[in-house]
């Protein structure tokens, strides 16, 4: 068998998180020959990240939600592998996807860590992209200090290592996701000095209808309330961190109350001392770049994220390209599983979801919409930025430089901003600063389309990961050039 044929499949799935696992299982159980590429060294994605199975072969699911669902999906995933229906490529990052003339998808692969890889290329008739997302960040004074982390990064650290990245924590930003992060820190033995939620919980009042459609979330909420009470964790609403202080690493944080627009209320500032880790989370940014590169249609979701548009079968506008999980809108793991199952079935044999599944997806989408509206990024978040606050961490571009480029040089979209200031041109390719730079570039624009175009420009990356020269040299002249 030639290497080409060996790595040709009916369905390729990118990602082995809740959405990707489900899609792979659904497709393989319908008889499709499936390949799963995932950057992780074991299945689970962000939500079901667990300690290395090479060392801990039987994880007990401590600190996890929906672990039974994971075990069920995992058993089916492993069964499909042993029946020869599923090929699993861990530690494998897809850095580019293309469509060949025949409509087949070509995935170009690079090792996520190290240098060894099973295949450099796989081909498949259908593609299900379930690439999830990462914590959305907003710059603020001191956020570049060591000890400042993404809230999800702290969660991932605990789940993967079974240890804590510090001793005394402040968790800040917005959204219900701050709760499990604080709860896991406390349960692992860390001190949570405060949880700062910028929104008012009264923001939920108009959305109780949507919330009651997903009763499981209320149960989870009660569980966190119990853990917060047990560990005496202060949950402060309408509160933001205005600054992280320290010389070579975080030592303390300044917090303050904010009004409904996120403007600091004078006289409410407070210093929380002796804090060595600060975790920020302003929702999540879906990783849509592979889908965007294939031509998938995007829209701006209720949380301001650029997400891909799909139909009731999770099909995008690109023939053969299905999308599930955070890439179609940030909505949590239960929704990601439901969407993955639908996408996998549709990719395998065009099967449509049952009415019940379609309703479940609808209910969770409504809940997600309510959540996004109740936990917006504060309108005036950039009031906190000083001239010398870094906006782009990689290229070390300051807020002052960004404002100068907008006001004096007319850089009023992220793409122009990038070419004038180098924001988003470093190692992370704008993953960290993309949302903020887009907001800062389009500030004052009254046309909603400007924002979408600006975010979309950031998601248009020729390659989805930094590459070695050898890998770049495999590109032929048909490849898009840097944009």
């Amino acid at each position, binding site marked *: 068998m030639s290497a080409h044929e060996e790595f040709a499949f009916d369905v390729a799935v990118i990602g082995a998180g809740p959405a990707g696992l489900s899609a792979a299982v659904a497709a393989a159980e319908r008889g499709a020959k499936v390949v799963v590429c995932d950057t992780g060294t074991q299945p689970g994605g962000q939500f079901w990240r667990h300690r*290395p199975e090479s060392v801990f072969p039987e994880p007990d699911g401590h600190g996890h939600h929906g672990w039974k669902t994971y075990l069920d999906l995992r058993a089916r995933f492993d069964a499909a592998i042993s029946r020869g229906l599923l090929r699993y490529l861990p530690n494998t990052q897809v850095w580019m996807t293309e469509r060949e003339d025949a409509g087949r998808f070509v995935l170009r692969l690079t090792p996520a860590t190290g240098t060894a890889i099973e295949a450099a290329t796989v081909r498949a008739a259908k593609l299900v992209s379930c690439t999830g997302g990462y914590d959305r960040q907003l710059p603020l004074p001191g956020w570049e200090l060591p000890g400042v982390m*993404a809230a999800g990064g702290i969660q991932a650290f605990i789940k993967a*290592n079974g240890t804590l990245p*510090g001793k005394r924590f402040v968790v800040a930003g917005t959204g219900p996701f701050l709760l499990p992060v604080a709860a896991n820190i406390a349960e692992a033995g860390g001190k949570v000095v405060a949880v700062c939620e910028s929104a008012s919980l009264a923001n939920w009042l108009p959305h109780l209808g949507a919330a009651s459609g997903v009763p499981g979330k209320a149960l989870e909420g009660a569980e966190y309330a119990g853990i917060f009470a047990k560990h005496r964790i202060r949950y402060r609403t309408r509160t933001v961190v205005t600054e992280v202080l320290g010389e070579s690493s975080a030592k303390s944080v300044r917090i303050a109350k904010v009004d409904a627009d996120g403007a600091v209320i004078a006289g409410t500032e407070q210093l929380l001392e002796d804090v060595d880790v600060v975790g920020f989370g302003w929702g999540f940014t879906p990783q849509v770049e592979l889908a965007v590169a294939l031509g998938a249609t995007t829209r701006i979701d209720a949380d301001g994220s650029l997400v891909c548009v799909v139909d009731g079968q999770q099909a995008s506008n690109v023939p053969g390209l299905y999308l599930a999980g955070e890439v179609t809108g940030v909505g949590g793991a239960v929704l990601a599983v439901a969407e993955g199952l639908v996408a996998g079935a549709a990719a395998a044999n065009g099967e449509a979801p049952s009415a019940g599944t379609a309703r479940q997806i609808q209910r969770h989408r409504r809940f997600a919409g309510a959540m996004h509206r109740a936990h917006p990024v504060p309108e005036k978040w950039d009031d906190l930025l000083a001239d010398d606050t870094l906006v782009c961490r990689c*290229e070390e571009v300051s807020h002052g430089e960004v404002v100068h480029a907008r006001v004096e040089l007319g850089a009023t979209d992220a793409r122009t901003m990038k070419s004038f200031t180098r924001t988003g041109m470093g190692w992370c390719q704008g993953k960290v600063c993309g949302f903020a730079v887009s907001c800062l570039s389009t500030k004052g624009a009254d046309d909603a389309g400007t924002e979408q175009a600006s975010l979309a420009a950031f998601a248009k990356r020729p390659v989805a990961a930094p590459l070695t020269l050898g890998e770049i040299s495999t590109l032929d002249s048909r490849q898009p050039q840097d944009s």
Partner: protein
Amino acid sequence: MSTTPQRITVTLNSKPVGTEQGRSVGAVLMGEGIKAWRTTRNEGKPRGLFCGIGACYDCLVTIDGQPNQRACMVEVCDSMNIEGDFDA
């Protein structure tokens, strides 16, 4: 979890340090109280873990002679050499 992970030794800037299998390079550094192991190109500022999941590239470190490896992604193994801008 009933398994006991094996004790291993890694070197941090040539200094031998005992740790256990099943942790990331970043977790081992943090466990030794090292919060930063890279210095930024322009301003010479210290950096360590930020996103924790391989997205931000803040945590780059040299592992067994290979530069620019993400400390949050790589699992330690026995005799691994970890080098960066830090005092071990």
